[in-house]
């Protein structure tokens, strides 16, 4: 009796996910993002593609680690042959460094526009284009209405969008499927070797629709993520910092 009830509930949950726009496609399940146990935080334990993810970063240092994490995800999404579009107002990304994250920089099309409105327009158009695998946009703020528009754009095309927001004073509810915050952690030295070690980040999943938010420590090593559970939070919770 108890088991049957649980079955019904899980069936209903998957049905609900479908209604909410989570499509279980072949590409979706086959996608290996290398995110390890973070994957359990997502609904159906699959990385949501065909949606818009939101990343927060206030400082230049945070922006570097956030773009690093996004680059790691892009590698999995574009899978050598795909193309991505990167739109920003003042591009600070250094293309040759993308190669260190397993992306061929020549397969990324960069669009540099000055107006915030144009960035949103370009992203909206790009998200509708099925030829792309991922679209990254660096913008200052994102209103609920605009995020809804982006979400509607991706639902047809199954392109994955990443929005990198830099102005943390205007955080509002958005229609994005998730909200992330990536910050740097001191690297762990390898067997007392001198010098700088592999990049290590504190990955906070602040919000995920139908999933379980959490916090992990992630190291980027040998072209993939290495996830370990977080022991204690090294950073203050984000909301307090912003307030």
């Amino acid at each position, binding site marked *: 009796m108890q088991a049957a009830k649980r079955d019904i509930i899980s069936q209903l949950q998957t049905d609900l996910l479908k209604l909410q726009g989570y499509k279980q496609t072949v590409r979706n399940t086959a996608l290996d993002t290398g995110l390890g146990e973070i994957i359990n935080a997502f609904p159906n334990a699959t990385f949501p593609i065909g949606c818009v993810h939101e990343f927060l970063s206030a400082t230049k240092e945070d922006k570097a680690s956030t773009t690093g994490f996004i680059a790691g995800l892009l590698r999995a999404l574009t899978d050598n042959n795909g193309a991505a579009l990167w739109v920003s107002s*003042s591009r600070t990304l250094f293309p*040759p460094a993308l190669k260190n994250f397993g992306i061929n920089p020549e397969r990324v099309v960069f*669009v540099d*526009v000055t107006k915030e409105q144009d960035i949103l327009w*370009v992203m909206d158009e790009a998200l509708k*284009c099925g030829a792309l695998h991922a679209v990254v946009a660096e913008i200052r703020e994102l209103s609920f209405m605009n995020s809804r528009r982006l979400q509607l754009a991706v639902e047809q095309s199954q392109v994955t969008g990443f929005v990198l927001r830099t102005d943390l004073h205007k955080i509002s509810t958005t229609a994005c499927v998730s909200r992330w915050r990536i910050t740097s952690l*001191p690297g762990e030295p390898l067997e007392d070797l001198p010098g*700088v070690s592999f990049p290590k980040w504190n990955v906070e999943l602040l919000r995920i629709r139908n999933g379980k938010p959490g916090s992990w420590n992630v190291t980027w090593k040998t072209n993939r993520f290495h996830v370990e559970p977080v022991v204690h939070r090294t950073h203050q919770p984000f909301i307090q910092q912003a307030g």
Partner: protein
Amino acid sequence: MARRFVSIWFRHLTTDWFTVRKPELKIIPFVLRAPARGRMLIVAANEVAEMKGIRTGMALADARAVIPELYALDDKPGLASDLLKRMADWAIRFTPTVALDPPNGLLFDATGCAHLWSGDEKYLTDIKQKFMARGYTVRVAMADTIGAAWAVARFGKDKLVIEEGQHIEALLSLPPQSLRIEPEIIQRLHKLGLHQIRQFINMPRSSLRRRFGPHFMMRLNMAIGQELEVLDPVHPVEPYQERLPSLEPIVTATGIEIALQHLLETLCLRLQKEEMGVRTAVFKAYRVDGKVEQVDIGTHRATYHVKHLFKLFALKLSSIEPALGIELFVLEASKVEEHNSQQSEMWKDAGGLEDPRLTELIDRIAGKVGHQTIHRYLPDEHYWPERSYKVTTSLDEKPLTAWRTDKLRPLQLLKEPERIEVTAPIPDYPPMLFRYKGKVHQIARADGPERIEQEWWLQTGQHRDYYLVEDEQGYRYWLFRLGHYHEKVYQWFIHGFFA
């Protein structure tokens, strides 16, 4: 670009045609005859006959008196013009613009063609050999003007390729016949003792015009390049243009859209048939008050996709002001390129850079925010970080070298390196702490230095010693020292942020 023209003179056009069909005629004197005013006249003579003094226009009986065994055939009326027309069609391989030059010549506009044969000389030799192979003897000359090329082909003594700007000198020693003028004028010139162009070319223009008439002046000016001569090509280059006049002046946006849709459909149908695609196109609206409103678009790859082109125009259609109404719409593809439909079919729905859908997206973005905003980056073989990549706007360009991965590079790079204050313990050691934007960063770990020298052939200045440092919070920076430590004129900079 200097214009270049080629004149081809068929010396025995019709007799060569008979010789090709009857090779035995080649070695015997032979003429073509035609009846005129009750007697037989010679209308063409082959080379052997001409060597023996037979000229066109002689009576056949007179010629037979000179050469009793002279072989004569009936002339075919219209043969020469038919032959020329056929030759012109065939000669399209040498230049897109071929014009007839009756009665026995062709004219090429060879501007920008000769380099494909690696030089003017080789170009002319090839033309000559190709005609020889077909059995026609020709004289070919090349010059800056049609008149000069014509003159040199028929009367030139030694050189047949006249270099750029040399055509007037080449004309000086030629007889007045070479100017394509009426026989009476030629006679009058000879009567006055003017047997070479050099004798009258420097005479006052007004007296030349008074004595020899406007036609003579026009021909002279054409030969020396002071008057433009226009070729009438056998295959006119048809512009990719469609027109749509409207019965009543159009004022609504819907009306303009319908007109555009209609024009695009007809134009794209033609492009598809010819396997061409639009690169740039202009849509013009002629208003009732005489003003012309226009919008233009560009594409990154040639296309004849109506829906896509319509979308590109739709972004700009709002700038057309109909005012009192538009009476005529014109759509012109100002730049077209070959479009291989099979190839684009192959990439369809494949995703990635080759997918035509991406090109269409890029076109739309370029139409809205401008071409200059879209870039791709390719590796460049430079160590200097700012020069380690090159920018391209094309989607097709492939990297020629591999990206370097042996040295770590920061993911975020400052546009300009910024000054920082640094405490470093000993020369060439990484710094202990640095101050950037008022904040002190204690350095916990560091890698380096990586010395990058200036590329002296591009820029002079001091070298940079790069350090990858990590501060106590785990933030990682790319710092460098400009110049040697011991010279005491060094400076420290921050250049980037690692992930």
